[in-house]
């Protein structure tokens, strides 16, 4: 005879759920509005979304660290707060890019915004839990939404991209599920903190290593897919190319932050437990990723594809920091992405404003290098700004990404991985080539044809976003200090 389950609301500590709930509710509201009144203008939805996200942001700010809630599946520690802030901030930066001067199919549907909000909620769940189930749920919510958003761009390319992403995503999910199954089998729990305890006790049981390694490998494959690490990166270039420019930029930052939090929790745990093997594997993958990403980016003819590969190699960069498993290392992950976010979104936004309905330069690509040839003569400001973003990505001081880079390298050096720092350095040198290639095209070449309307798609809101990104990129040196100290505090507070 089962007695009814009684749960007091206090013990649920719903405040920890509030941010995601806001996002989800917001999504639903948007849908409802659409039910009541047809074809409202996208600007309304954009603004609503921003409002909701701002509230979300505020709520996350309001959270205080190291709490658990909702049957202890929610984990609000420094990492989750920092990452949620970044996620929401990134989303806030992204969504106004919908307000282009030209109509774009997807932004006409309120579903787009609803899905977007659900996706944000999903990412937040990923970031705010150490329960393998909830992580999976969040991951799937986000991914499924994301697939749809990509597909909504309504070009044969975007369908192809969606399908590729979706299929591989499904496989990754399977890996993840299997991985967590093994973990569960090993420890009888899916709560990472309990997993950690049990594993630490069983670590030296004979014959268990295979299982431990196996679990780590399966989970690694799944997350490596999300983080687009070699050899699970193959989707990234195609998907970025297929997706609309802003969405590609978004994908190169926000989902990765969420995925990094998860990997931080999982592999951090493994390394903490002293499974050096995982660290080694991750380091190898990191080096391979950054190097291959770079040398493949070298030979691209399309700027967007090049940026896709470059963000692969950036991910490799950061994964290396993750493998260090020092507080500096973990801080650098978030610092890097915080700084990378502005520049990268800015760069993709620049592609976005030069988006044409039909391909005027190349039948395969939207943004071949030729398109930007001689931009300095056509659109000086645009050229300068794009050049700033490129230099920043190349790691030229004092632009934002440089600070991320040296912080990562410093972390590597401090952890005693000088060789890693040197590899990173050389990689940035290689990377400089393809970023420079664009600068060269924009500044040193003559326009290929009368490209009067490269900035076809420009509009006030986009200007604001790009301007903001520019300022953030150039003025990084002035806000790096607060970022570092805040991140460092939060992360060391949550024990990573």
């Amino acid at each position, binding site marked *: 005879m089962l007695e009814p389950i009684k749960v007091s609301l206090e013990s649920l500590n719903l405040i920890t759920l509030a941010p995601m709930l806001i996002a989800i509710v917001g999504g639903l509201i948007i849908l409802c509005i659409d039910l009541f009144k047809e074809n409202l203008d996208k600007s309304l939805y954009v603004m609503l979304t921003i409002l909701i996200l701002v509230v979300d942001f505020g709520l996350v700010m309001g959270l205080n660290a190291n709490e658990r809630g909702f049957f202890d599946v929610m984990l609000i520690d420094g990492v989750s707060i920092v990452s949620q802030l970044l996620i929401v901030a990134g989303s806030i930066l992204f969504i106004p890019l919908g307000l282009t001067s030209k109509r774009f199919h997807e932004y006409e549907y309120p579903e787009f915004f609803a899905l977007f909000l659900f996706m944000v909620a999903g990412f937040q769940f990923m970031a705010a839990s150490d329960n393998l189930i909830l992580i999976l749920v969040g991951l799937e919510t986000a991914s499924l939404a994301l697939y749809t958003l990509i597909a909504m761009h309504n070009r044969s390319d975007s369908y192809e991209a969606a399908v590729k992403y979706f299929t591989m995503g499904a496989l990754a999910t399977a890996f993840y599920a299997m991985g967590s199954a093994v973990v569960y089998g090993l420890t009888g729990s899916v709560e990472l903190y309990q997993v950690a305890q049990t594993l630490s006790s069983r670590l030296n049981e004979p014959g268990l290593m*295979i299982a431990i390694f196996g679990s780590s490998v399966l989970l690694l494959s799944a997350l490596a897919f999300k983080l687009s690490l070699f050899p699970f990166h193959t989707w990234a270039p195609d998907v970025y190319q297929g997706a609309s420019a802003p969405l590609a930029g978004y994908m190169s930052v926000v989902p990765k932050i969420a995925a990094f939090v998860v990997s931080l929790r999982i592999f951090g745990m493994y390394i903490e437990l002293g499974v050096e093997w995982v660290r080694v594997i991750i380091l190898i993958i990191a080096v391979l990723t950054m190097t291959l990403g770079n040398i493949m980016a070298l030979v691209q003819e399309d700027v967007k594809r090049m940026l896709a590969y470059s963000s692969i190699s950036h991910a490799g960069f950061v994964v290396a920091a993750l493998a260090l498993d020092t507080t500096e290392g973990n801080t650098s992950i978030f610092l890097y992405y915080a700084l990378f976010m502005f520049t990268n979104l800015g760069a993709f936004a620049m592609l976005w404003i030069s988006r044409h309905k039909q391909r005027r330069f190349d039948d395969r690509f939207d943004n071949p290098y030729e398109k930007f040839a001689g931009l300095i003569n056509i659109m000086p400001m645009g050229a300068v700004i794009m050049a700033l973003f490129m230099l920043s990505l190349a790691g030229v001081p004092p632009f934002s990404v440089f600070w991320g880079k040296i912080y990562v390298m410093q972390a590597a050096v401090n952890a005693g991985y000088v060789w890693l720092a040197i590899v990173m350095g050389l990689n940035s040198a290689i990377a400089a080539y393809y970023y420079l290639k664009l600068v060269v095209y924009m500044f040193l070449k003559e326009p290929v044809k009368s490209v009067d309307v490269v900035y076809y798609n420009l509009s006030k809101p986009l200007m604001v976003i790009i301007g903001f990104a520019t300022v953030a990129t150039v003025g990084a040196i002035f806000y790096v200090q607060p970022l570092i100290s805040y991140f460092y505090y939060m992360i060391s507070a949550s024990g990573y």
Partner: protein
Amino acid sequence: MENLVYIALFAPLVSSLFAGLFGMSPRQTFVGIVSSALLFVSMSASLMLAYHVYQTGAPIYVTMKEWISMGDLFIPFGFVVDQVSVTMMGVVTVVSTVVHVYSIGYMDHDKSFNRFFSYLSAFVFSMMVLVMSDNFAGLFIGWEGVGVCSWLLIGFWYHKPDQSREENPSISPSWAANEAFIVNRIADLGMLVGIFILYWNVGSLQYSEVFAALPQLSEIILTTAALALFIGAMGKSAQFPLHTWLTDAMEGPTPVSALIHAATMVTAGVFLVIRANPLFSMTPEVSFFIAALGTFVAFFAASMALVNRDLKRIIAFSTLSQLGYMFAAAGLGAYWIALFHLGAHAFFKALLFLGAGNVMHAMHDELDIFKMGGLKKQMKWTYIYMGLASLALAGIPPLAGFFSKDAIIETAFNEGTLILWIMLVVTAGMTAFYSFRQVFLTFHGDERYKAFGIHPHEMYKFVLVALSPLAILAAIAGFFQGGFHDFVTRLLPEYQMSEHTHHLALVLGAIVLTFAVGGIALAYKKYANGLKRDEKTENGFLYKLLANQYYIPHLYEEIISKPYAMISDLMWKSVDLKIVDATVDGIAKFLYKSGDGTRKMQTGNLSNYLNWMAIGGIVLLVIAMLSAMLG
């Protein structure tokens, strides 16, 4: 007195700058006059200083300002006027004043008249710095300064095109200039090294301190230092094997040859040895080497002069050989005699050159003495001057050359170095022969120039007048030997002939004289009445060997110039471009290629992507298995 020093030193500089102002404007006679006047001022100042030093016997030290001071190195612009430097100053200013005046006449048709005076005075200034400086660095300033001026002046007619060695042994003025500069640079390196050695062992470059510190230095340091410095001297004084540039330097205008390549600059090497006599007298081996080399050069140069047909080159060779004499004397420790011969030689050699200049002027720059002859009718004064100078050069008493040269030869005997003595004596004979061969071929015999439609005419009066001081000095300088000896030996080490030599003095003198007269007689017999060319000898090996300067210029070209150019080209085309640069680009290309290779994994086909993913997972799993198995 200080002011006199400054006047003597800077008057030429002022003159140079003044002339420089008009450097690019067309010929103005007053430029020449003004600079000659300034040179005259400098000369008078120098002579006054000479008198003062002669009176008091006390050297004058002037430190103008600090030049370089770094670490423990301290180099001032300091000048000393003592017996040696004042002698040099006298010689330099006298000759250069004459040459300046002479040039007004000689260069009157040249459109770069003003520029010429600017260079000439600049040279005099550098020469004054060279002789007056009281430290090695200052000496080096002058040393390089005269080098540059000689570069400018040899290459004065830079517009002349290059010719083959056959037409013109010194390819072109500009070529000769560069050769002179570069050869001198080689020697300067030696000199620098000498300076470095002294600095690091003494801690200063002031003559006084250096010479004071010499006794504490080890044998080896002294020897290397002396040797290094002498290498420097060899360059400037064109000693074998660095002698080729001097004859080529004859490409410059004749006054230049007279001033720079006869009277002053080329004697700088001798001056250095005399200056640094404390060092050289402490290093007998080096000194003897100097003496031997000097003697050899004296003979070697004279031999080349025997067959040469070029008026100026003959004189150049004789200069070379006389420098040899000076080094012989200096090397044997008779520094004051060397200095004496330096002075005397300056006078008569300058006179000789300027006379040759007159001839050139008359013959429209024709230099081949085979095309001259019988000029004494048209050019009486020039004939007298050159005859006088040649007599002096040949060492016929009572002319200057006799005393100075005789003293040197005597020294060689006195030192018991008989071989040197014999060679010097023979050389004396050869000297006499070639100088008079030249005189006779130029002024006596049939007037071969008519064949070339040349109408020679005597030089301007004022020029001839200007030459007179040199003539007088060349004639009478010898009588001051005694006084000069007393004067300079206050500073330079005393050198006296031994009793034994003293007794033989007359005999020795007689021997030398016989050779000299013999040489003249031979020359007279062969050339006095017309040129009788003798094919057999001229095609003889020896004749050819001498005529081609022992093929040394060709040799240098073959083993130095050409290989250097070739290697340089190789370095550039093969090493720099093909190896060093290619490696860099190679790395870049490799990266790019590997990019092209790896992008192939992006087939775009979904199932390949899935395979990659699965393979990745499986491989990781396998690695996991293995590593777990292995521990």
